[in-house]
């Protein structure tokens, strides 16, 4: 890891084929994130924030430049290595929660630990701890369709956090939530950021999220136009 940073992005360009040409979604991004940050990629739709989040999450790869996550260059990772990186170090929170519909809340949160081959006793304790963090211990046997939007997103946070990842990537986590639930979710994540020292990176254009950020990186047309620490939160 470079200079204590767990994420280093240098000259990152991402192009997508569109018709006979290309659309440049990210155009020369240079960024670094340290351990325990609570940062947000902010900008309008099409500014490139989700694309950048996907590259950091090793779900996509750069067209040019370099993105290094936990010392591993995302563009050079094999599918297996990328899966390994996600499995051990990354937690994802999606706009649409993406809870597995046939599993209970407990099973959804347990899922990443099964992939890590954690033994049953430790697994159960870790799942219950994670559900306790988000206040969902009374819903362990519920299925996603029985949960409200706020509960579903809390379940998704518990799933992202249960393996205590170094980095949590949240793509528009409050987009489908009302104001009260949004604040509840954000307070939960803020607390987890402090307690577990995980780096949180959001992709958002929601003002409710922005007011919680300690670092705000503004994107427009695939470029970083502003990168600032938020004084009242730092």
């Amino acid at each position, binding site marked *: 890891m470079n200079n204590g940073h767990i994420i280093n992005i240098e000259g990152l360009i991402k192009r997508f084929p569109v018709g006979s040409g290309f659309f440049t979604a990210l155009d020369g991004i240079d960024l670094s994130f340290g351990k325990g940050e609570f940062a947000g990629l902010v900008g309008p739709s099409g500014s490139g924030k989700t694309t950048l989040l996907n590259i950091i*999450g090793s779900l996509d790869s750069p067209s040019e430049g370099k993105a290094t996550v936990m010392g591993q260059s995302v563009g050079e990772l094999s599918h297996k290595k990328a*899966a390994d990186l*996600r499995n051990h170090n990354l937690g994802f929170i999606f706009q649409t929660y993406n809870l597995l519909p*046939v*599993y209970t809340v407990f*099973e959804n949160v347990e*899922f*990443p630990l*099964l*992939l890590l081959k954690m033994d049953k006793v430790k697994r159960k304790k870790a799942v219950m701890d994670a559900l306790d963090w988000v206040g969902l211990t009374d819903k362990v046997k519920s299925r996603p369709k029985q949960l409200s939007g706020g509960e579903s997103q809390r379940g998704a946070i518990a799933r992202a956090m249960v393996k205590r990842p170094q980095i949590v990537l949240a793509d528009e986590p409050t987009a489908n939530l009302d104001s009260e639930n949004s604040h509840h979710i954000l307070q939960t994540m803020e607390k987890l950021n402090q307690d577990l020292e995980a780096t949180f990176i959001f992709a958002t254009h929601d003002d409710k999220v922005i007011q919680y950020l300690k670092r705000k990186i503004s994107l427009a047309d695939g470029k970083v136009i502003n990168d600032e620490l938020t004084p009242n939160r730092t």
Partner: protein
Amino acid sequence: MIALKLAFRNLIGAGLRTWQNVFVLSLAFVVIIWHRGIIDGWDHQAKRDMIAWDVAGGQYWHEAYDPYDPFTIQDSHSPLPTVWQEMIDQDKITPILIAQATIYPDGHMLNVKLSGIDPYQNILKIPTQELEVEGEDIPILLGTRMAKSTQLAKGDLVTIRWRDANGTFDAAEAKIAGIFKTNLPTVDNGQIYVPLERLRQMMQMPNEASIGIKAVNLEEPLPQSGWIFRDQQYLLADINAILEKKRVGGSILYFILMSLSMLAIFDTQVLSIFRRQKEIGTHIALGMTRGQVIQLFTIEGAMHSILAAGVAAIYGIPLLTMQAKNGFAMPASADDYGLAISEKIFPVYSAQLILVTVSLVFITATIVSFLPARKIAKMNPTDAIKGKLQ
């Protein structure tokens, strides 16, 4: 191990959707096995009927006798070998004298084959005991097809004209002593059964016969000069050849049915897996490799077929066993279409049939789960997560 656990969890978690798929797949198992069992049972029955009504344990033919050449009938008769007498008395061989004749039902003329048979025989299933009647008229026995074509009923009289051993034409009234029903047209169409001694008298052929029918459980007696032994294999060669051809045709139908089932499974699996691409994308985001995703969904598909085999066994075994025991009733009119169909067909289910069907469904269900899972696992995970169709 994880894939197995997750696949099982997916199946149980999917609840009704799983059981719907499993039930449909189990129906495919049962219907395919039942259909093939009926065809095999039909074939077995055809052979059983041939043995019961005609072939028995084999036949001794007079050396001049050729059933496919009517001109040989006139000369294919001779006195019975003396060593047979004891066996005839013990009901181990029954002699049949064959002659040609003409009958005149309702003023029409019809050539028939007269078979003189011992009314007390128990080797063939033909109900010859109905020939045990006293009277001036010659008692004769007909099959239902023959009775229908001649419009004769039990108790009717019909004129028979024949030519005896000396070449003299003679005629007499015959009375229908009985009409029997058989699945085997070859012992019915164009044939009339007469008491053996009566035919011998009519033909002036005392103690003579054209063929000797051997009981099924009798060991083959020593060869007799002037008589050729035709074993079951020889006498069933034609039906075996027909069944072999039917087997090929039946296999085509079997594979058509199997393909239709497979198509249904394929559609279900493809639809199911494509609908779950968001789930697959989430699996990848949570740290599964593509190989693990493919493995998970393939095992899930294979588990469907294992569960389906179990469910099929639960209701299929009692159902198919009951049918094998009680038979499958054919419509009463089936015989009118000219098909030799028994009133009931008893399906036969071989272990090979069940194993092949279960294995084929299992393998195909696995393949049709693997192919779409592989395609989706190759999707860009960012699109799969959003559930974008590609």
